[in-house]
Structure formats: C-alpha cells, structure tokens
C-alpha cells in the first residue's frame, strides 16, 4: 500500500476514435492511480490503449477523429477533463511532461536543441533568456550530455538517438514537473543506450522526486524501475499490482502468458520453442463478446464468452479482471 498522496487518479476513462470504418474503443474503461513520486508501469501489447491513455491525460488526443467520451482524470484532485484548453496548456510541460518513442523525429529540426529547451522554460517561468539559457545548460549537464555549452547551439540532426532522447528528457524535466510520462521512450533505442537512459531516469527520479508513468510493452523495462505495474489489454486494465507481486504471482492468464514468453537467460537450454500467447490482439472494430481475452485464454469458459469480468481486488493492492484468476 502506498501512503503517499494520490497525484493522478484515472477513473473509467473511455477514449474512442471515430473513423470511416467504424468506432474504435481504444481506451474502454481504464482505472489507474499514480501517487506522488511513484513510478508506475503501464504494460501491454501494441494497440491496447496505453499511449492513448497517456495522451488522454495530456489532453492531446487529435480531435477529429478521437474523443474522450467518458471518465475522469483527477490531477491534484482536479478533473483535467473539465479544464479549459488554456488551463491544460499551462499544465503541459510544467506540471505534467511527456517524452515520446521516436527521438529521431521528436525534435524540431530547424531549431537548436538549446532553443527548444529554453522555450519550454520561458513558456512556464518568468525568467529572461539569459537565465533560461543557463538553466538549459544545467539541465543538459544533468542528463549527462558532455560539453553542454557547445551542444546548446547544435541541431538535432547533429546528435545520436541516445543524445536526443536525453535532450527530450532535459526538456521534459526543465520545469520540474510533478509527473513525467514516458511513452515507450526507450523502445527505439538500441539495448545499451536503452539501459543508459533507464539508468538516467532512475537517477533523476531519485534526485527530483517526480512521479513517472512508464508506458512500455517490455516487462523487463519496468521490472527494475516501477513500483506498481498495470497490465492493459484491449483498452482495459486486466491486472494491477506491485512489481514484485506481478512478477512473483501473476493472477491474470494474460500476465502469466506475457511472463512466460520472456526469454530467460538462466534457464537451461531446451529445444522447445519459446512459449507465446496464441492468437492475436482482437481488432478494435470487432471486440469479442464477454471477456476480450477469451479467444486466446487457455482457461476460458462459457461464462467468459458471455459476460465481461470486473476489476476485483484479490489481495491488498492486487487487482485482477478475470473470472478464473490463476492461483497464487
């Protein structure tokens, strides 16, 4: 149990996309809580609604074709969905920051990285340009970029992927936000750089104390960092528990399947194929009746095909959405 204050409380968030081919319920009832200073993981396959959740928090859903159709997102006790555009703008970059998956394209190619970071600072704080530049260089130093004074005037294309992601982080943290959302921030980097960036984020979290919402499809990423892990499937959270609990005793068949499919270094060599979850993520236009995981679930029963299970607290802090959760 976490006795820190609740920072973000998402209740029954539903974000739909209205396209020519039909309605896509990308996020269909997500509940999620982030406490101050907590590192929360949001894990799932592509298309399960995790990025959409993040963008919904930021209110950056492109409208058309997307629309937040229901639910509440409480931040510091205030429902973000009821705020005006201008109020949200002031929050973005200042109280809640986000970093994205593609560092190669996430920075504006025609402005120097220094300018882009300084812009974030001057947007939200009343300091002059010289001060902003100083602070930018501090941030660059903080994220581990060597020769920050020289790098200030460089353009994104003059830096490697890893460097750019560091710049993104510097930009996101420049105003000391309460929450940093990292949307697959390390997915596009090669493994060693990935490890570096994760180390950096861990270090910064300890230093600055902000909460982080790590969105990833890779359980390994959240294993070390997250306090709490949420597993998402087909627009809903299917399991939520502490990291330890998830890895030690996964209760939802999907979580179990995910863990099984991670190649483990320590296991002895076998000639058996790596276990994978059968089937594919359902098409958002044709969600299966009942529990959305039932077509792929080895434990599915008739009930699963008829009714949708609710999120149930099976153990303190451990929520599962299943009629037949796995025994711990």
């Amino acid at each position, binding site marked *: 149990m976490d006795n820190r204050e609740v920072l973000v409380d998402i209740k029954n968030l539903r974000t739909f996309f209205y396209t020519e081919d039909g309605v896509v319920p990308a996020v269909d009832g997500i509940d999620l809580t982030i406490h101050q200073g907590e590192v929360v993981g949001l894990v799932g396959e592509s298309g399960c609604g995790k990025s959409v959740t993040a963008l919904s928090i930021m209110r950056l859903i492109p409208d058309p074709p997307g629309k937040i159709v229901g639910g509440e997102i409480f931040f510091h006790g205030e429902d973000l969905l009821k705020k005006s555009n201008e109020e949200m703008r002031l929050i973005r970059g200042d109280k809640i920051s986000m970093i994205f998956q593609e560092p190669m394209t996430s920075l504006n*190619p*025609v402005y120097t990285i220094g300018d882009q970071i300084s812009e974030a600072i001057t947007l939200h704080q009343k300091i002059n340009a010289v001060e902003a530049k100083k602070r930018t260089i501090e941030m660059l130093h903080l994220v581990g970029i060597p020769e920050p004074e020289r790098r200030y005037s460089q353009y994104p294309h003059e830096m490697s992927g890893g460097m750019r992601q560091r710049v993104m982080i510097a930009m996101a943290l420049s105003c000391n936000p309460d929450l940093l959302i990292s949307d697959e921030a390390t997915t596009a980097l090669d493994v060693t750089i990935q490890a570096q960036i994760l180390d950096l984020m861990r270090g910064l979290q300890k230093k600055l104390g902000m909460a982080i919402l790590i969105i990833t499809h890779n359980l390994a990423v959240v294993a070390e960092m997250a306090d709490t892990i949420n597993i998402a499937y087909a627009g809903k959270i299917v399991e939520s528990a502490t990291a330890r609990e998830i890895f030690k005793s996964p209760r939802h068949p999907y979580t179990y399947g995910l863990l099984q499919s991670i190649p483990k270094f320590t296991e002895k060599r076998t000639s058996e194929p790596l276990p994978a979850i059968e089937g594919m993520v359902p098409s958002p236009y044709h969600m299966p009746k009942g529990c959305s995981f039932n077509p792929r679930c080895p434990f599915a029963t008739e009930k699963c095909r008829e009714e949708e299970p609710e999120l149930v607290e099976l153990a303190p802090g451990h929520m599962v959405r299943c009629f037949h959760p796995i025994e711990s």
Partner: protein
Amino acid sequence: MRDYVIRRILGMIPLILIVMIVSFAIFSMVPNPFAALIENPRIKRSDIDRLIKAWGFDLPWYMRFFRWFGGVIRGDWGPSLLYPGSSARDVIALALPVTVRLMGIEFLVALAIGLPIGILSAIKQYSMTDYVVTVVSFMGMSMPTFWFGLLLMMLFSVVLKRPSGMPLLPPGGILTPGLEEASFWVKFLDRAQYLVMPVIVLAFSSIGSWARYMRSSMLEVIRQDYIRTARAKGVPERSVINKHALRNAMIPIVTLIALSVPAIVGGASITETIFNIPGMGKLIIAAETKADYPTAMVGLMLISILVIVFNLLADIVYAWIDPRIKYS
C-alpha cells in the same frame, strides 16, 4: 559551401551556351516573315528576295547563329524586325518594366493571400473552410484567363461606372493618355488603376496553386512528431503553427518561390493581350511568330539566365534555412 557555389557558377556558362544554340535552332524553324507580303499588289517577288537577303534569312541557321553571336559578344544584340529602326535590346527594355510591375505585384499578392489560405486550409482540414478553399482554388486554376479577363472588363468597365460616367476601372492599357506631365503621385495612382483587373485575373489562378502547395506542405509537417512534442511542452497553438510548423513547412515553399521568380520576367501573354499591356509575354510571342530572332533571343536569354541563376539561388536558400542540408 563557397566551393560549391563557385563550381555551380562555372557550370552555368556552358549551360547558357547550349541554351542559346538550341533556342536559336528552334526559332529558325519559323519561316521568314516576308512571304506574306506577296499579298500586297505593289510588292514584287524581287522585293521579297531582297528583304530576305538583307535580314540574313537566306543563310542556313547555323551561319545566322554565328553572325548573331558575333554581334552579341560585341554587345550588339541585333536590330529588331518587329520594330525596324529599334534595336532588340531597346524593344525588350521598353517591355520589361511593364511586365515586372504587373507580374511582380501579382506575385506578391498571390503569396500574401495564397499562403495564409493554405495554412488555414491545412489547420482546418476537412472542415467547411477547407472545402470552400479547395473548390475556389481549383476554380481559379481552371479558369481560362481570357474569358475571366473579358468578364471582369465587362463588369468593371461597361456595367459599373464612376459618377462622372467614366468606367469604374479602365478596360485594358497601362496609362491614361494626357497625364505625361502630371506629378508623381497622380501618375502612380493612374498606373495603379490599370493593374487592378489584370492582377486579379493572374493572381486568382496562382493563389489556388500556392494555397495547395502550402496546404500539403503544412499537412505533412503538422503530422510530425515534433509538433506533438511542442504541444506537449505547452506551446500555445498559435505558436505551434506559426513558429514550429511554419518554419518547416516553408522550406519547400521557399524553394518554389525562388524557382517561380524568373516567370515574373516572362510575362503572361494571354492576359497581356486581353488587357492590352505591352509586356514581355506579348512581345516574345510576337517575336517568335514573326521570326524576329534578335528580339526573341534577347528575351529568351534573359529568362534562361534568370532561371539558371535562380535555380542556384534556390539551392543556396534551401541550405540556408534548413540546417540539415550541407553542400560540399
């Protein structure tokens, strides 16, 4: 960069020479202008033969080319056939300022209206505004200039009148006879009223094109990740468009602008004919059909050199505004 520019400039020289020879060869396919004189009962065959010989049309085209080229090197661009007694250079020098005035103003007007419309269209893609702009753009691009011009003249000169009974706008021409000794401002305003309708006719079609180019460039840019980053930073929407998006969207547009400048000198022959403007378009066409090769060559060389120079300029400007581009 400097070496690149020098190399390009050196490369222009053989290019210009080739253009000269090829143009001259093509012009020579036009038959001599004296044959039609036979209709006049007082002109005999021997008169026509004498004229053919005097103007050099009895020589094969390459001999004529050397004769002409020899003159050009000495600074003598040759006499005009269309205007006996005047040199080709004088004839062009009279038509050039008229054309530059008309086309230059039209160019600026088209950019000033077309680009913002394109941006608006892109931001509000698929909205009513976008559809209206698209329809009007296509109308403008498809409208035959001579028909539109005549229609405007009927409206503004025959139907609409000033209180004095004179037409609201003069139907064609460039100046009012009798104002030669008037003050600068009177003459300026007089000239201006003649430009209104031709500029409308010409701009109407270019506005459509510029709006389309800007729209598609802008649409491409708005979808980029760095725009999302800017929004996530809390940049106000107006700055997202005008600062982040526009600077990137303008890169191809600026090159297009640089490449379009030489067309200012070429004039628009149909519009000039309809509006009775003694400009380059009309002049070059007349020179080409009446086999006035000195005048046609001066005009053509002027435009070719401008095209070649502005191509180089476009490349230089491109490198200047896009930091990713570097020439070696």
